[in-house]
């Protein structure tokens, strides 16, 4: 990877405890001013190292400028820009959070019916010492991994595996935490043959009746039914720069205006950002991201997730188990807007 030609710099130097988030070429136009500054800082640091000189005084103002510029840029992102951030290949994925926010993860595979779908991962883990079941979509960072993970687009067997694990969590009285990050359920021949619609429908019905606490977090892309199939939960939250939508902005633009390049217009109209969805009463909380987004500081993002999860788990601990299911039904009954005369 040639220096400065790719987005890579932001994640430079970040190595997960076990997993390294490898930066790939992914240019965010609006991050260009940040790149320039980062380049300058890196240059100074290199000089300092090579020539054994102290550049602390030169670097400090640049770094504080970088931080404030990051904040400024990220506060003013348009919905479509947030879509690009949500799809950023250096953004932490489910397995990254399993490394950073959780401990003791043991992956459990297969739906016991057809095969294991690597587009969804799940298993037992510990969160601040307690047993939880964590299930999430998993994208790949390079071509090879993406072929294996199918770009995070599950087949029916992925949803059926997820349901198997949720039912197991219910039996062992453990909370279920789902991490949502998918462009959508896979639209392919095998997926349709094996009942993609049925698998999603079944998950919705069964997640509604799960007698254990459930929390869903949109960590990146919440792509329609393929996302919702893991996200019918007692608490639903979104990372600040994640998106949740009934259709991709590109898809919406193609259908409504026969022109995929109208995606900016569609992203605006669809109301897909965390703040929009909080206002619409669809989500319960927003997980704040570090300045410059989760991809700029995965550990910071993991810490933020930990804080929010702890708070909501503590809340749900106070709800008697037999109240969870009726309260969940009530929560969703309120969703939607209409008039009645």
């Amino acid at each position, binding site marked *: 990877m040639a220096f400065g030609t790719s987005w890579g710099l932001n994640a430079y130097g970040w190595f997960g405890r076990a997993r390294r988030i490898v930066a790939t070429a992914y240019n965010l136009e609006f991050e260009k001013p940040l790149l320039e500054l980062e380049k300058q800082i890196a240059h100074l640091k290199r000089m300092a190292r090579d020539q054994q000189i102290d550049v602390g005084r030169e670097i400090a103002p640049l770094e504080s400028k970088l931080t404030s510029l990051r904040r400024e840029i990220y506060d003013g992102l348009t919905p479509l820009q947030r879509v690009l951030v949500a799809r950023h290949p250096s953004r932490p994925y489910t397995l990254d959070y399993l490394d950073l926010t959780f401990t003791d993860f043991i992956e459990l595979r297969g739906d016991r019916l057809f095969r294991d779908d690597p587009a969804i991962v799940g298993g037992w883990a510990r969160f601040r010492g307690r047993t939880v079941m964590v299930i999430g979509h998993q994208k790949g960072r390079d071509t090879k991994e993406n072929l294996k993970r199918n770009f995070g687009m599950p087949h029916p067997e992925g949803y059926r595996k997820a349901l198997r694990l949720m039912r197991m969590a219910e039996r062992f009285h453990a909370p279920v935490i789902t991490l949502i990050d998918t462009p959508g*359920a*896979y*639209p*392919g*021949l095998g*997926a*349709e*043959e*094996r*009942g*993609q*619609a*049925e698998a*999603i*429908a*079944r998950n*919705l*019905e*069964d*997640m*509604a*009746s799960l007698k254990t606490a459930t929390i869903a977090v949109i960590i990146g892309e919440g792509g*329609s*039914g393929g996302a*919702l*199939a893991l996200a*019918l939960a007692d608490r639903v939250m979104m990372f600040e720069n994640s998106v*949740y*939508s*009934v*259709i991709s902005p590109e898809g*919406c633009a193609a*259908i*409504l205006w026969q022109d995929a390049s109208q995606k900016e217009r569609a992203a605006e*109209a*669809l*109301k*897909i950002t965390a703040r929009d*969805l909080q206002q*619409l009463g*669809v989500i319960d909380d927003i997980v704040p991201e570090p300045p410059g987004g989760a991809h700029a500081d995965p550990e910071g993002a993991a810490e933020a997730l930990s804080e929010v999860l702890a708070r909501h788990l503590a809340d749900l601990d106070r709800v008697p188990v037999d109240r969870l*299911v009726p309260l*969940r*039904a009530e929560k*969703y*009954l309120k*969703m*939607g*807007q*209409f*008039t*009645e*005369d």
Partner: protein
Amino acid sequence: MAWFRKDRKARTSSREKLEIPADAWDKCDECGHVDLREKFDRALQVCPNCGYHKRINSRKYIEILTDPDSFEELFENIRPVDPLRFESYADRLVATQKLVGMADAVVTGAGTLTGVPLHVAAMEFAFMGGSMGSVVGEKIARLTALSLKKKVALVIVSASGGARMQEGVLSLMQMAKTSPLISQLRDQGIPYISILTNPTTGGVSASWAMQGDINLAEPGALIGFAGPRVIKQTIGQDLPKGFQTSEFLVEHGMVDAVVPRSDLADTVARLIRLMQRRPAFEAVD
């Protein structure tokens, strides 16, 4: 198909044609068969020649699935709004309401079928492709809640391209709103029969349409999660013949039976009678 049509005309005697006005005739979209409109009507718009099921509206399904004069419409006061101020949605709603004569894309109500009480919802494809927004979700949810309360069987006739884009994620949430109620029907042993008609795709197929105790499909209906065009684009090849048809879904274990329109009422009535839950067996200790 020009030769075919010519052939058809030749077979109709000119005298008969003179006596019957032109608008008394109807033609099958599938095979081109021309017959008296009245004959199509009597066959519930199923082609007498090839069996093709032409689309009928939601009112017609209500008529088919309830005893004469037994149907009482419920929740018709629930009307759509424009929650996202989505461009041109408000205008489109008004125009569609005028054109279709309905407030939104579903009719819901209570009635009897061969004397057995049931709750029926029928989706209206002519209303923005039967798309599911807040109103559709709310009416289905209320009807399901009523079935729970009164312990009356539920029948939903689906015809939908999926979620309504113009209501954004609120449309998606309708799948989450109705699912807990349908899950309770299942727990309480109240029969729910889902009837899938042409087409049933997207968010509707991925929620109530596939959640029936019994899923029935009309012959030749397009049923799936993703639409054929999207799949074709994704995989970059043509789809096999018969892919995502009702018959394909039966073969792959996703629906219980393909039922011709003429047999729908009878099948539903028999199922509801067969599925009356008996009191639980109590062990004598």
